[in-house]
């Protein structure tokens, strides 16, 4: 974390603490979801999500100017993930193995939905982190390719290519397992 000194509760006088809690409540899961699929494990996802909101606290002034708070937070989360990855590469740390979390299924759709979802998740682990991130940001968050590209430090064309890769592989995997 490249943080400057953080005043965690800058606004206890005027209730901004409560606003920040509301923001955490509104966006935590979206951030978690992104870093979970990028990192592939819950431990890193928890740390990265916390890191994201701590960074957001440091930059409340900047965040208050954003019209799209969630997109801004997802960008911060992506940067946190990339920073961590760079540090891990430098320290030659071994990344945690991916989790394959259990699945909650709806009655009546149980077997088919579970199998497909498990297949989709398993197929995801074969994709690169960037490809996973592009797919998730486009499908889950409906962000345009231009914005996704800016977040990930790549071009729009490259982002489209990653989406192409993700869809091709996921569909192929699901078709193969379905027989």
């Amino acid at each position: 974390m490249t943080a400057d000194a953080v005043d965690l509760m800058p606004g206890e006088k005027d209730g901004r603490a409560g606003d920040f809690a509301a923001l955490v409540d509104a966006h935590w899961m979206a951030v978690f979801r992104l870093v979970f699929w990028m990192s592939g494990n819950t431990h890193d996802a928890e740390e990265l999500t916390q890191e994201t909101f701590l960074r957001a606290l440091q930059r409340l002034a900047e965040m208050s100017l954003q019209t799209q708070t969630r997109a801004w937070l997802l960008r911060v989360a992506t940067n946190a993930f990339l920073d961590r990855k760079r540090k891990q590469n430098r320290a030659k740390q071994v990344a945690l193995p991916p989790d394959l979390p259990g699945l909650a299924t709806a009655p009546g759709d149980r077997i088919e939905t579970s199998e497909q979802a498990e297949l989709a998740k398993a197929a995801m682990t074969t994709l690169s982190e960037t490809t996973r991130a592009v797919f998730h940001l486009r499908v889950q968050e409906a962000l345009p390719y231009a914005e996704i590209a800016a977040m990930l430090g790549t071009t729009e064309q490259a982002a489209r290519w990653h989406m192409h890769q993700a869809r091709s592989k996921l569909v192929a995997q699901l078709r193969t397992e379905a027989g």
Partner: protein
Amino acid sequence: MNCQQVREWLLEAENPLAGQPADVAAHSANCAACREAAAELARLDSLWRSLPLPAEAERSKQAFLAGLACAPAARQAPPRRFSRRRILQWCATSAAGLLVAGGGGWLVFSAQQAQAYDDLLDHLVDWNLRISQAHSQAERIRLYDQQANHLRAMIRKSKFSAEAVAVLNDYFDNGDWLVSHSDPVGEADRFSGLADRLLQLAAATDGARNSKRLNRLLRQYNRVLESGVEVKIAAAEASGAMDFEHQKKLEQLILADPQRIKNLAAILERSPHASRKEIEQAIRTYDKRKKKAKPGKVGPGAGKAKGERRITES
């Protein structure tokens, strides 16, 4: 357009079913296979959006929010140290069950920060205990001067949260206090408060993921408890010169022991492997203290202190 071109477009499309260019739409209108390919990609997107997250997602959110909720209460507490300490103890207890890696709310650290923080905290603990154990006030001043500027600079330069820095400042301020006071009961009371801070940090540490950190914090907790609190209580008792105020102070200190033991038990339950040895040692210390707190000594029902009159029934 042919099927291959349409498929290529679909694989890159922001939305496979909507916003199709005219030539793609025209082809798809006449090609069932390409329509099915688009529908298949839309189903894939829908499947992805429906995937649930692990339970840790919600738990970690609640832990973070719990930490945010604690911090303003601690800050808005009256400036008296005792009330603030009580509130922070409550925060540690209530957040203890919800915490995830790195700690709760205001105590959240990245792994790198945690290391730096713990190193500085160790340094401050050692410094305090050395000053406290010095044989003379002159020695205390010498030990204080050796490190004060360096420690003050380290705290100022640090990049931790305000609440985390507050813990470090409490230790630094105690060093300050020690060089201008020579009062075993006062020292025991102050070190007890500092030990409580360490307990709070330990309660906020996920032992499953950070066993080394938890163990380190609890070791320091025991050091402060034994060398900062118990030694000073023993010195105060041995002096035989405790007045009524001193007695009250020690009673209050000991009255909080059941809660401390409860907090230790909670940590032990969550992280038995990382904490057992140190927690058992701490509880033994509290047991010894309880046994020593007989009438006439320290604790509730303590006997007549210097200057105190007792009304006896005839």
